């Protein structure tokens, strides 16, 4: 009887392991873990292979304008990236204090779920209408010069995203940053955004509960 019980526990454990490895990020990794300011984040994928998207990201036909399809390259010199590059960026550049993953959407969207480790900087706060934009740029590492301009040599690398290929908010934010003098080489664009991220079942962080 004891042996049977042990066997059952073992079988369950093995089955559990098998399930955990069923939906990996790539062949050789099942999760991405990184630490930002002493706080640990983990990204993995939903393991239920029957899971399908419902709600906002299952929609196909939003009104355009304003929800129009975005180009692959949004600005000269700004790289467009995919999910693996987002995770690499978080693991190396962001956790090394040299970069930030920026969610360009409005605070309500950010609060409903974002990529773990992302910071909410709504696109319009980077536009010239915000009289305090320079304060944000300085927080991102720009150095104020004596003549009132900003030096971006030491500024952080920024990776921006919004709701996905049908969302113009991160392209607008990138445009505003370039116009403010941010070097295009320090910017990148995750075009897939929350749409592609959710489609792949990758971890979504709810900022209000997880910090």
């Amino acid at each position, binding site marked *: 009887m004891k042996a049977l019980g042990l066997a059952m526990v073992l079988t369950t454990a093995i089955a559990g392991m098998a399930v955990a490895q069923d939906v990996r990020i790539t062949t050789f990794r099942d999760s991405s873990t990184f630490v*930002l*300011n*002493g706080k640990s984040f983990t990204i993995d994928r939903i393991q239920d292979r029957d899971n399908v998207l419902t709600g906002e990201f299952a929609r196909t036909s939003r009104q355009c304008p304003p929800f129009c399809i975005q*180009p692959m390259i949004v600005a000269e010199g700004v790289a467009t990236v995919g999910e693996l590059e987002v995770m690499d960026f978080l693991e190396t550049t*962001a956790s090394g*204090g040299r970069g*930030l993953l920026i969610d360009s959407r409005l605070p309500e969207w950010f609060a409903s779920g974002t990529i773990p*480790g992302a*910071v*909410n*900087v*709504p696109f319009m*706060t980077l536009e*010239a209408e*915000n*009289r*305090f*934009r320079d*304060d*944000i740029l*300085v*927080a*991102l590492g720009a150095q104020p010069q004596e003549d009132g301009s900003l030096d971006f040599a030491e500024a*952080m690398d920024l990776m921006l995203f919004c709701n996905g290929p049908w969302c113009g908010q991160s392209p607008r934010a990138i445009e505003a940053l370039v116009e403010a003098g941010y070097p295009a080489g320090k910017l990148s664009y995750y075009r897939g955004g929350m749409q592609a991220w959710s489609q792949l079942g990758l971890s979504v962080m709810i900022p209000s509960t997880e*910090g």
Partner: protein
Amino acid sequence: MIRTVLAFFAFALVVCALIVFRPFSESQDMAATGSASDVEVTRAITPAEPVVAPAAQAIQPQPQAPRPRRPETSDVSMDDMTASVLADLGFETETPEAPNVEEQQIETTAGILASIESVTGQQVELAPRQTLRTLVVTALREGQSDDYIDALVNEAAATGRVTVPEVMVTSDGRVDTAVLLENLVTHAIIASGGNVPVPDVDPTTNPGVEVRVVQRAQDAVQARFYTVQTGDSLGAIAVKFYGRVDLFDRIFEANRQTLSSPDLIRTGQRLVIPALDA
């Protein structure tokens, strides 16, 4: 297809840029065109009328001095500004306070800096900012003179540290703090149930004021005109004729052809002053 999309995108960008920067707007052409255009336009309105002497003098071209930096304007209306200052001073005002764009921006920006700090661990702080509201409230609390407040606000506006409602910008590019202070008094009177009388403007003692009888098809109406004097703001003109700043809109609407924005009035410009009960 991509080219077409890119072309449209570029076109949209150019249009947006034109809207935002308004390279052909009157504010930049103003110095060049000067008061010459005023003469033409006002004559076009009343072709048969002889131009009376005071107006003719006022229309003389101004010496082309280098223009000082114009104050930056905000969408905050004079009344919201007044209501918030009065609220800060402990008055019960009649209108609920509308959100102030600048104060919202400060709040949003401070929130963003906090979230950046939470991820990077590097301390960043929003430098303390003053707004027209805090500037005026502090000075009033200190019991400063009108002249002091005027100098203080103008210095802050000239260096771009505060934005002001459009109706406070004068014809010579200064900030008319008198009109704000006057509006504070008017609002305080209204808030305590008082009435603000419409002033009777005497054309013989007020420079720039003209009263004419204009013959229309059916009847004759009395029309008032005002030639903008140096240092006038649209708000001050509204107070002069109507007793209240918030009625500036009547004058602005009646002069849309020659006045593109309430902060762009020019010395020598001739404005139609519509009758209030019309």
